[in-house]
């Protein structure tokens, strides 16, 4: 692990979302990301974490680990791991962005926003874990 990295592991509960997000905001600040990009990183991570908190453990209390991995090229990778049911968020189809207000489904945007604001994404299921990697580059 490089010196700007780190890892936080907490129960998968909405009340822990602020702690995960301050951890990622600090990592992004140390890696020199400007405020606007830090907000987008926070947004992508919020969407990924809320998905896990809401669906991964089906009511049971599991944990989520979030690891920051700064890269030498100035980018920043986050590895999010949970031991919930296998779920690849990246396989979800894009939402319909063209329908009129009355027909527009309420929801389905979270994963789309992860893809829009990350520069690189990867998901793997190994050792009973979902491992989602999101990489962010500077503007």
């Amino acid at each position, binding site marked *: 692990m490089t010196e700007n990295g780190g890892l936080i592991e907490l129960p998968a509960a*909405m009340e822990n*979302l*602020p702690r995960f997000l301050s951890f990622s905001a600090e990592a992004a600040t140390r890696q020199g990301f400007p405020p*606007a990009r830090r*907000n*987008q990183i*926070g*947004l992508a991570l*919020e*969407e990924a974490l*809320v998905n896990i908190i809401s669906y991964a453990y089906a009511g049971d209390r599991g944990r989520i680990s979030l690891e920051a991995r700064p890269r030498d090229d100035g980018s920043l990778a986050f590895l999010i791991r949970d031991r919930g049911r296998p779920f690849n968020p990246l396989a979800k189809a894009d939402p319909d*962005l*063209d329908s*009129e*207000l*009355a027909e*527009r489904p*309420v*929801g389905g*945007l*979270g994963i*789309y*926003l992860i893809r*829009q*604001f990350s520069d690189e994404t990867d998901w793997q299921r190994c050792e009973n874990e979902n491992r989602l990697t999101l990489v962010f580059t500077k503007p």
Partner: protein
Amino acid sequence: MEIIKTKEKDGYAIFAVKGRLDALTAADFNLMVEERIKTGLDRLTFDLSELDYISSAGLRAILSTAKQLQARGGELRLAALQPGVATVFKVSGFDKIIPILKHPEDD
């Protein structure tokens, strides 16, 4: 997150929505909006000049408000979006289905 009624203009009630509209605050936001629109208000403008952050949970809340008002023959308009919030709206295609004003008192 807070919602404050600022004024009415041309039949639209203007509410300032401040802070963060995210997975932690969207439920409160929905309750506060319900409370205000059950009195019969159906044309609203949300002044978002002090909304610092929105995520998909916030977008869902905004969309659901817009749909409710439209179903009653009313309308939701948004105004004065900060650049980061404006980007999220644009990426989500919401700028095409919800009127967005530069200033809350614009027509």
